[in-house]
Structures are given as structure tokens and as C-alpha cells.
């Protein structure tokens, strides 16, 4: 019938699930296609019943298989309507919801957008890997944005200081042919850390230290902001490393994804039954996950044993009682099951799945009075559980609702291990990328030292002779006790434009102004927004650089996620295209804004507009 997945069996497509569930899930994948929503809905309804009878909440691999088919057969444009039907059986697939949100935005379907966005939000909050992935995305995004911000600010500040720095190099270092060699010396100084292979944070700090003597107060604020953000980069890297340590590197097959997939491997500590140490996965959560996997595979007795073990270990959460009740109910232990549901409700009075299961339990033991009392609340609660689309009116076959892994507990575990953050700082890939050759212990100290030495050097530079470059005309003067006012030379203060005198002096000044203007324009184009620094608009420059950094950070994150050929890759390639577009627009806008600000400032002091 269909080339894919017809060649594969249910075992291969849905490893770990019971044959009953796997075969029906395969039928769902085969039924998917453009214009086949009705047929697909029937198959999905059948699959739902079988999933509920096995305590399966979501089969996340279905959207992945459907996407692969659609991509191969060329009907990805119709995927949204197919996914909308499949959402009944794969509610925890965050990438499926993200695809639907993307389609809603592109086709301006606002009413569906809110519903799909709610589904996405529910999947992110309720499914372990999605929540951890989202957390990792936020940290990675913030880290990339910090990197771009720091690089941008340090480049802009270095280029702002370059003319004065060059003159001071030629003054301090007695070079032969100093007019020609001092620019080369400044270039060598600039490229030195790149050649040495230092990490990004070290290079950025190096550039900023060389700029600090020539900066205005507001520019120092920019520099300090960059240094503080670099410190957060260090913490972000160790946070990511901790996430990987706790959750494992392959979430789909790992212990955390048990509510969307059947895990294929477990952490070593969990296998040995030992209490994990350091940043490894918390033992009881792994046990929870193992019990959920056993339930989904139809091993109710094994699952019951694990749940009981957890209760005995003191982890008597409502979710644990509810799930043990489900396993007991499936095995026909109706009274024990009911007492578990009641225990769960005693722990959390309005727990949706426990309410529903208790209601079903009372029905099965013919306690109709209790069932009647619980029914309105049970119906109301399970309807509101996002991202599941439980329809109580259709659930007439005595379906049981399992409780998913309480991922909020996972976040609590990670937060409790915040003490490990600094200890783990040096082990992550981020650290090696950004802070080499520093040792982890020295990294924070290094940033503090950079900031302190910048402050000391700035104060000292106000007591020694240094060159100052006029922001208006580029004239360089040797000054001491530099203040904000000395940003402009006397000629610019007097607003004499290209000079009241004519002849040689005027020609010299005119040439200087032209070269300065060309320099600022080139710098504004290469490092957009830096023209704002020359115009004295430091804080607005910082806001602009922040926006540009955000768009570039999106690009950095999306470029690397395009290779796998799945839903995430396809979504990220779209994100990357938009990020490139936004970056180009912001880049050009920043360049134009910087140049115009500079020209406006020159006009104010009577320079712009004059022609010889």
C-alpha cells in the first residue's frame, strides 16, 4: 500500500509498546495523508482506547513517522490538519504542536493559534524532555545572545578607541617609521589573542581592557554590562552541563521520556539500584519512569511492584498512588485500586486523573452514590488538563488515566543541586569554547580582575597624558585629566566647522575630517550601531546591540539544529531563514542609524554639509 511504513513492522516502528497498541499506532501512521482526516480520526479513536487500557498517555513517535512520510511523499503543506487529528494520541509531542503553531502563524489562523499554543505550552510543561529541552534552549539562547553582545560591544569599543590607542602606541613605543608602523602595532595588539587561540570571553575582555582609557562614562557602563553577562555565560554553561548529567544525553530513549516513548536504556545507578551521587539522575524519578514504562508495555505486576517500592521509600506522591491504582485496576484488584485513588485524592484533592479514576472505580464497585458525587468534578478537571484533549463523554469503556512523570519535581531536583553549578563549570563544552585557557576556578576571578583593573586603569589614565580623539572631527590631542568635555576639540567646541581660516590649516582640517568621517562610516557598517557611540548615544546603542544579539543568537541556535531531517530540523530551517532576514534588516538599520546619528552630531557642531 504505502511505501513507508509498509515495509516496517509495528515492532520496528513502535518498539516496546504492546503489540495491540503498536499495531494500531501503525495503522494510524498508514491512514495519515492529505484529505484523509475522517479515516484517520477513526483509527485515532481506536488507538486512544487501547492506549487508555494500557495507561499510555502519548505516543510521541507517531508525528515523527508521519512527518517523515509526508516529507518523502511531498505533502508537508497538509501536515497541520493531520497533526490536529493525531494530537489526540500524541499530546506530549512538543514538536508537533510547534509545527501547528507555525502553520497557524503563516496562515493567520488566530482562533486555532491560541488552542495550538496552549497545547504547545502544555506539552512543554508536562513532558520531561520537552521541559528540559525548553530550559536548555533558553539557556543556550541567552548564552549565545550574551556572546554576541559581548563580542559586538568589545569590537565597537575597541574601534572607538583605536585612533587614540594607535597614537599612544607610537608615543610610548619608539618605533621607526612610527606613522606607518603604529597602525600595524595596533593590529598586532588586536589580533594577538585570536592568534593565541584564547576563548571568546578572554578575547573580549582583552579588547575591552585596551579600550578603557579612552571611553566615556556611559561606554564604561556598556563594558561593565558585557563583563557581568560573561559571568552569567559561565553559569549557563554549567547549568546546561548539569541538565545533561541529570537527564542523560538521549532523552528520547532515556529514562526521562517515558510518557512519550518507551525508554530503551536506563542510567547506570538506577540499574544497580544505588542512590545516585553528584549530578546524576535522581534515583526515585528514574524508578517512577521505569514503572511508567512497565505500565505502557503491559507489565502491570512489575509496575505495581515498583510503585509499592516507591511508596515504601517515602515517595508517596499523588501521582505514585494514582498510577499504582491504575496498575491494580488493570489487574482486577478493584478495591485496592480504589483505596489508592482515594489516597491520591487525600494528598491532592483536585488531582484530575485521580478524580477520574476514583469515579471509574466507584462505578465498577457499583458505589453509584459516590460516583454521582464525583462525576461533575472529575469531568470538569480532566477536560482542563493540557495538552491532553480528554473528552469524558467519549470515555465510556472504563478508561483509566495514568499520571505522567511529575517534571516539576525534576526542576526542583536540579535547583537543589545549584551548589554543583560552579563545581561543574569547567566540565561543559561551553566552558572550553569560551574561557580557555583559564581554569574553572580562575574564570570568575578573571572577570572580577578584568573589571577591577579596568576601573583602576581608567582612574589612572585620568592622571597621565593620553591621546584623546575628537568625536566630531577626529583631531587627536594629548590630554591629561580627561573629562567628558574633552570629547570634542576646541575647534569643534567653538563650532567653527572646517575652520574659519583658509589655506593650509583649513585643508589639513578638511582632510582630517574627511578621513575621520570615512572611518566612522566604515566602522558603522562593519559593526552596526557603533556610529551611535561616536554620536554619544551609548544607551541607545546598547539597546540596539541587545536586539541584534537576540536575532543573531536565534541564528546560532537554529543553524546547528537543521541536519537531522525531522520536524525540529524543518522548523529550525524556517527559523534560521527568518533570523537571517531580521539580522540583515537590523544590520542595515543599525548602520544607517549610526551613520545618520554621527552626521547629525557633526551638523550640530557645524561640520556636516560644508563643501570646499
Amino acid at each position, binding site marked *: 500500500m504505502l511505501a513507508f511504513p509498509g515495509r516496517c513492522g509495528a515492532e520496528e516502528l513502535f518498539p516496546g509498546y504492546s503489540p495491540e497498541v503498536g499495531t494500531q499506532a501503525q495503522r494510524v501512521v498508514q491512514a495519515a495523508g492529505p484529505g484523509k482526516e475522517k479515516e484517520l480520526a477513526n483509527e485515532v479513536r481506536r488507538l486512544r482506547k487501547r492506549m487508555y487500557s494500557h495507561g499510555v498517555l502519548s505516543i510521541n513517535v507517531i508525528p515523527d513517522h508521519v512527518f517523515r512520510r509526508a516529507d518523502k511523499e511531498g505533502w508537508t503543506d497538509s501536515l497541520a490538519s493531520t497533526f490536529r487529528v493525531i494530537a489526540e494520541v500524541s499530546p506530549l509531542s*512538543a*514538536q508537533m504542536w510547534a509545527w501547528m503553531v507555525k502553520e497557524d502563524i503563516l496562515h493567520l489562523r488566530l482562533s486555532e493559534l491560541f488552542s495550538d499554543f496552549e497545547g504547545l505550552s502544555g506539552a512543554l510543561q508536562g513532558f520531561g*524532555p*520537552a521541559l*528540559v*529541552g*525548553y530550559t*536548555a*534552549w533558553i539557556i*543556550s539562547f541567552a*548564552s*549565545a545572545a550574551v*556572546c*554576541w553582545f559581548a*563580542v559586538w560591544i568589545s*569590537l565597537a569599543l575597541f574601534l572607538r578607541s*583605536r585612533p587614540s590607542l594607535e597614537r599612544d602606541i607610537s608615543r610610548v613605543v619608539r618605533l621607526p617609521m612610527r*606613522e*606607518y608602523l603604529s*597602525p*600595524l602595532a595596533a*593590529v598586532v595588539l*588586536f*589580533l594577538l589573542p*585570536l592568534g593565541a587561540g584564547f576563548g*571568546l570571553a578572554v578575547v573580549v575582555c582583552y579588547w575591552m581592557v585596551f579600550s578603557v582609557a579612552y571611553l566615556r562614562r556611559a561606554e564604561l557602563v556598556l563594558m561593565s554590562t558585557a563583563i557581568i553577562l560573561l559571568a552569567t555565560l559561565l553559569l549557563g554553561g554549567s547549568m546546561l552541563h548539569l541538565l*545533561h548529567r541529570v537527564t542523560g*544525553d538521549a*532523552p*528520547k530513549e532515556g529514562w526521562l521520556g517515558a510518557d512519550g516513548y518507551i525508554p530503551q536504556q536506563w542510567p547506570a545507578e538506577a540499574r544497580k539500584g544505588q542512590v545516585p551521587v553528584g549530578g546524576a539522575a535522581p534515583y526515585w524519578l528514574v524508578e517512577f519512569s521505569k514503572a511508567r514504562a512497565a505500565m505502557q508495555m503491559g507489565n502491570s505486576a512489575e509496575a505495581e511492584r515498583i510503585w509499592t517500592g516507591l511508596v515504601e521509600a517515602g515517595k508517596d506522591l499523588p501521582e505514585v498512588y494514582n498510577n499504582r491504582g491504575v496498575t491494580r485496576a488493570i489487574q482486577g484488584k478493584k478495591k485496592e485500586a480504589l483505596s489508592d485513588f482515594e489516597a491520591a485524592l487525600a494528598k491532592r484533592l483536585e488531582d484530575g486523573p485521580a478524580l477520574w479514576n476514583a469515579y471509574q472505580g466507584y462505578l465498577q464497585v457499583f458505589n453509584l452514590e459516590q460516583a454521582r458525587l464525583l462525576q461533575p468534578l472529575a469531568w470538569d478537571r480532566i477536560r482542563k488538563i493540557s495538552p491532553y484533549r480528554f473528552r469524558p463523554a467519549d470515555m465510556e469503556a472504563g478508561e483509566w488515566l495514568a499520571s505522567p512523570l511529575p517534571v516539576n519535581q525534576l526542576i526542583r531536583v536540579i535547583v537543589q543541586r545549584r551548589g554543583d553549578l560552579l563545581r561543574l563549570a569547567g566540565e561543559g*563544552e*561551553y566552558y572550553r*569554547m569560551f574561557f580557555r585557557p583559564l581554569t574553572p576556578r580562575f574564570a570568575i576571578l578573571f572577570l572580577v580582575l578584568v573589571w577591577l583593573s579596568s576601573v583602576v586603569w581608567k582612574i589612572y589614565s585620568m592622571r597621565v597624558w593620553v591621546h584623546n580623539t575628537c568625536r566630531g572631527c577626529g583631531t587627536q590631542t594629548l590630554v591629561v585629566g580627561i573629562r567628558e568635555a574633552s570629547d570634542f576639540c576646541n575647534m569643534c567646541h567653538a563650532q567653527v566647522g572646517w575652520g*574659519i*581660516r*583658509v*589655506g*593650509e*590649516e583649513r*585643508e*589639513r582640517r578638511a*582632510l*582630517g575630517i574627511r*578621513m575621520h568621517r*570615512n*572611518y566612522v562610516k*566604515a566602522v558603522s557598517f562593519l559593526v552596526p550601531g557603533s556610529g551611535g557611540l561616536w554620536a554619544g548615544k551609548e544607551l541607545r546603542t546598547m539597546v540596539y546591540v541587545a536586539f541584534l544579539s537576540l536575532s*543573531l543568537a536565534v*541564528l*546560532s*541556535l*537554529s*543553524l*546547528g*539544529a537543521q541536519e*537531522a531531517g525531522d*520536524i*525540529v*530540523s524543518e522548523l*529550525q530551517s524556517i527559523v534560521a531563514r527568518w533570523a537571517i532576514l531580521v539580522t540583515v534588516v537590523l544590520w542595515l538599520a543599525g548602520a544607517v542609524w549610526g551613520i545618520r546619528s554621527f552626521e547629525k552630531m557633526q551638523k550640530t557642531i557645524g561640520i556636516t554639509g560644508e563643501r570646499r
Partner: protein
Amino acid sequence: MRGKITDFGIPEIFQLVASQQKSGALTIRGDGRETVFLFSDGMIVDVLPDRQRAQHALLGNMLVAAGYLTAEELRRILALQEKEERKLGEILVEKGKISREKLAKYLYLQVKDSIYYTLRIKEGDYRFEVFAVRPPSWMAASMRADVLLMEGMQFLDEYPLLREKFPIGRFQVVRKRGVKIDPVALPEEERRVWNVIDYSPDPYRVFRKACLSWYEGLRALWGLWDRGLVEVSGVDEELPDAEDVFRKSMSRKYAIGCVRAVVWTLTAVVAGSWVYTVLLSPSVTRIFAGWANFYR
């Protein structure tokens, strides 16, 4: 009124015209050149140096030497002057090339220079023609001939002695390295020379820049030299043309700018590739995209 200088000395002629408050043109011919002084009610209001023989005393050349005009600009303005038949100073003020006050100072210097030179003439003749002369509008105050004569006589007495103190022939002057002084403490003329001493090694151009006559400039320079603030040395070869020096210095500055632009453009390429390597290269973006593994 006309006669020979040997019969009636130049100081006496000036004194006569000034005391009788005459208006008109006094032409003095001698040493192969002809200089015309214009009087208005006994005050000197203008001078017309010999265009062929006294080029250094022409207003335009004085301003070029002082760096307020380039030779090319002067050529253009002179062409305009010829066409419009107007005074050079008037055109310069009108075009905003020089302020009225600065022009007045250089006109005063021009008259002073011409009188100093004229006083040295031993043989020649003079002619005074009476007619009404109106002072030019840019002239703030007329020049008193008797005051200028007093200064001129002092010049005649002191100049030979002063010149002997400097190297024979051409010489150059530079600021002594490492010397620091508060210019306010210096006498007026010395301060004016000190403030522009870096303008050129050629003392003539420095004095023009300071708006001083050659004699006044030498006197101020001797003061600075005596205080150990400047170094004076003779030059064996002819000093290069000021215009050429200026053009070369401008070309050099531009060339340095071009070299700097090329060097930093290459640096920008290197920096750009570094930014790409650390933030956009596949190896880095793969690490940044570690979050995506949680959805696969």
C-alpha cells in the same frame, strides 16, 4: 611736489606730508623698484608695493606664506580680482577667506614692511600728487606715519647688529625638545613667535604666521634663542618650496590613511572569520543546538 631723495630725505618727506595732513599718493623710486603710499589727511591708509620687484611684500604672498591661502587659491582669487577690478583684501573678506580683523593686521604689516624697506633707499626720487583718498572700509584705524617712522628708524639702527647674531645666509629654527614653558610669561612678540614656532622651520614663514615683520620676528626669535627655548642652525641648501612641502605632507597623511584603511580592512576580515568560527561555524552551532536533542 617732487624731487631727489639725496636732496630731501625720506623721513622728512613723510614728516612733511603728515604734519600738513595732506591727502594723496607718495611715490618713491629707488633700488630699481617703485613703492606708492596713499595718505588721507596725513595718515597712511594703504601701500602699493612694486609688483615685479617686491613680491614678498604683496598681500597675497604674505597670506600664502602665513598659511592662510594656498598658492592655487591665490591664483584663482587674483584672476577674479583682475576680472572684477577690485581690491584683493575686499574679495578675501567678502568670500570669507579671512576675517576683517586679520586683514587689517596684515595690511598694517604690509605698510610697515614697505616703510622699513623704503627707509633703506639711499638714492632715488619721490613724487607726491595731491588728491582725495578715502580710507578702505575694512581698515579699523589709519596708520600714523610718525609712529611708523620712529619704529623704522629703530630698525635701521638695530637690524645690522641683530642679524649678525644669526647664521650667515639662510637658517632654520626649531623648538628645543623637552622644553616646557608657560607662554603667558613671554613678552608679546616672543609669545606670538613661540605659539607658531612649529609651523615651519623657515623663520620667514614663522614670522609671517605670527604677523610680524622680518625685523620684529628676528628680535623675538633672538629673545627665545637667548632663553634656550629654540635651536637655530644654518642651512646649506635651499629650503624646499613651501607649497611643495605642504602638498607632500598632505599626500603623506592621505597615504598613511590609505595604508591604515587597508590594514584594518584585512584585520576586519580576520576578525569576521574569527567571529564566524566562534559563533556560527558548524562545530559551534552544533553545540549551541544541543537543546534540539531533547526533542529527537
